[in-house]
């Protein structure tokens, strides 16, 4: 029951997104596209956090690497090979994540890893802001949306809402990929490691290798999201990888629910909806956003997805209600 309902909801949400440009204002379409990309970005973060138990505060840096790789290559005239460029950006992000992982993962975890990645991302941002070749603080503007060709068919992504639909497809594929990773053997092993690293090691799992692979995959997807974002925003600036960007996936994930696969996506759309619907209330935006976040955290400490699941469980399993909710809400102490 739970699955069918959630599945229907997913199909409904997907259809609403695809059909959006047919009726909505172009600002809303742009926002929806941006939200899809950062939603995928947040999913990639949660692959690391929710499944491998590693929190990175520097994911903005990887997003930025993907976006800059794409922007530089497009400016360099490689528009013809768009798919190749996406692959290249993804690889770049994965390679950087792998390098960082090799050096850092064995030595530090938890908050130390978080702050280490934060510092690396800040260093990247400062460096980008100093390089004239990539436009320093003002970044690379005027990024073209290239043609996209498979076989004989060519689509001009620069026209109308073509790039939006391209984003829909690309994000759907990335989500599917993440789903497959999270729910396959790899994801299950990661969760075992998260729950009890000693037991996993005892069972013969090379925990370090698994974490490293998760770190790399997460970085690659983050960079891929960045690469998709560059032609969408048509400008990249060093601030694309700033601390706010790095906290975005954390915010979205926790808002939506870290224990749920869809949590980060839900969080991203919820946050965008809050921001868009309060856009005319200038000057008190911080208070509104802060209060809503606070309200959500206090009311749904398991995130929106957690609250949704609890609600469904409550509706579908009425007789066992007490136990189900007490299991969901009772903190385990000592």
């Amino acid at each position: 029951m739970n699955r069918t309902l959630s599945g229907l909801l997913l199909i409904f949400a997907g259809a609403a997104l695809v059909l959006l440009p047919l009726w909505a204002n172009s600002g809303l379409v742009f926002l929806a596209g941006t939200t899809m990309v950062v939603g995928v970005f947040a999913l990639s973060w949660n692959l690391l956090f929710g499944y491998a138990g590693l929190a990175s505060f520097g994911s903005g840096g990887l997003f930025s690497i993907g976006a800059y790789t794409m922007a530089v290559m497009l400016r360099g005239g490689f528009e013809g090979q768009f798919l190749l460029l996406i692959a290249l950006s993804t690889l770049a992000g994965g390679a950087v994540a792998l390098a960082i992982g090799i050096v850092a993962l064995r030595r530090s975890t938890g908050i130390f890893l978080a702050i280490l990645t934060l510092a690396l991302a800040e260093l990247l941002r400062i460096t980008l802001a100093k390089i004239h070749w990539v436009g320093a603080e003002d970044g690379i503007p005027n990024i073209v949306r290239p043609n996209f060709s498979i076989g004989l068919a060519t689509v001009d992504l620069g026209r109308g809402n073509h790039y939006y639909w391209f984003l829909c497809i690309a994000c759907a594929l990335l989500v599917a990929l993440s789903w497959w990773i999270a729910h396959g053997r790899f994801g299950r092993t990661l969760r075992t490691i998260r729950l009890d690293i000693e037991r996993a090691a005892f069972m013969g799992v090379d925990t370090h290798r698994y974490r490293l692979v998760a770190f790399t995959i997460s970085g690659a997807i983050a960079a891929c999201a960045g690469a998709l974002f560059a032609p969408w925003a048509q400008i990249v600036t060093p601030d694309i990888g700033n601390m706010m960007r790095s906290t975005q996936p954390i915010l979205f994930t926790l808002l939506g629910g870290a224990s749920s696969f869809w949590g980060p996506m839900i969080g991203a759309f919820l946050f965008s909806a809050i921001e868009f619907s309060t856009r005319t209330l200038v000057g008190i935006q911080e208070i509104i956003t802060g209060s809503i976040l606070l309200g959500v955290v206090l009311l749904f400490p398991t995130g929106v997805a957690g609250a949704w699941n609890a609600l469904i469980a409550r509706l579908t399993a009425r007789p066992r209600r007490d136990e189900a909710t007490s299991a969901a809400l009772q903190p385990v102490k000592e």
Partner: protein
Amino acid sequence: MFTLVNGLTTGMAVFLVAAGLTLVFGIMRILNFAHGAFFMIGAYVASTLVGSAPRSVLALVAAAVVAALVVGVLGIVVQRFVLRRIQHVDEHYMLIATFAVMLVCVGFVKLIWGLEFLSVDPPPGIDTGVEIFSLFVPSFSLFIISSGVVVFLVLDFVIHRAWTGKMITAIARDGWMAELLGINVPAGIMAAVGGSFALAGLAGGLLLPNQTLSPALGDTFLLLAFITVVIGGLGNVRGAFIAAILLGLIDGLNTMLLPAYPGVAVYVGMVAFLLLWPNGILGESRL
């Protein structure tokens, strides 16, 4: 030589801000995103009390103490209505909660004090400089350095020597047992969290003549304070003290040796640090 004195000044300023942050981490195990915002509120409250030209050092310190009390009370409110409610859920939700608190604080500061820059002068007595061994040292720097040292000594005494500190550390290390021993743990945590927020307010008041007041003030120190807390070994006040001094010196050397890249050495130093001593200088300690 001047770089050294100035490095110390920067270090002690950062320590003043980081002290409360490291305490709250020691007690609650959270990285408090709102700490910078409370530091800023402390500064604004103190500036409202002393005006733009404080009459004496005493007036400034008194204003800082009142600011500490106000922010401490705010901290207790936050603890009571936000942090306590979610302390058993998942520590990461604390992160989002303190982030939200930060947004709300910044929003209210903008509403109450506006956006225009405010400035408070150093009071007479510490508004000039002194010659020490033919080296010109601003006396306000000496004020910051001594404030930092005093706050550290008091804090270190309270935590490691005084009985209250022993009780608080007992709560932080094993609250369950503390409660079995009849200690009112929620009240203890409340007081300790109030105390660490009060430290943020105190820092805001003491550093008031050093910085310009604007709603972005919180950000200026937050990242440096985070770094200090982490390098110091999370929740370890002595470690934070050493880390703050190191940070100040690294920053000072940065301006001397690499003037074209101000502020970069702090990050590089920190990355190197975390790789060499992954658990901080003095190791992690639950207070």
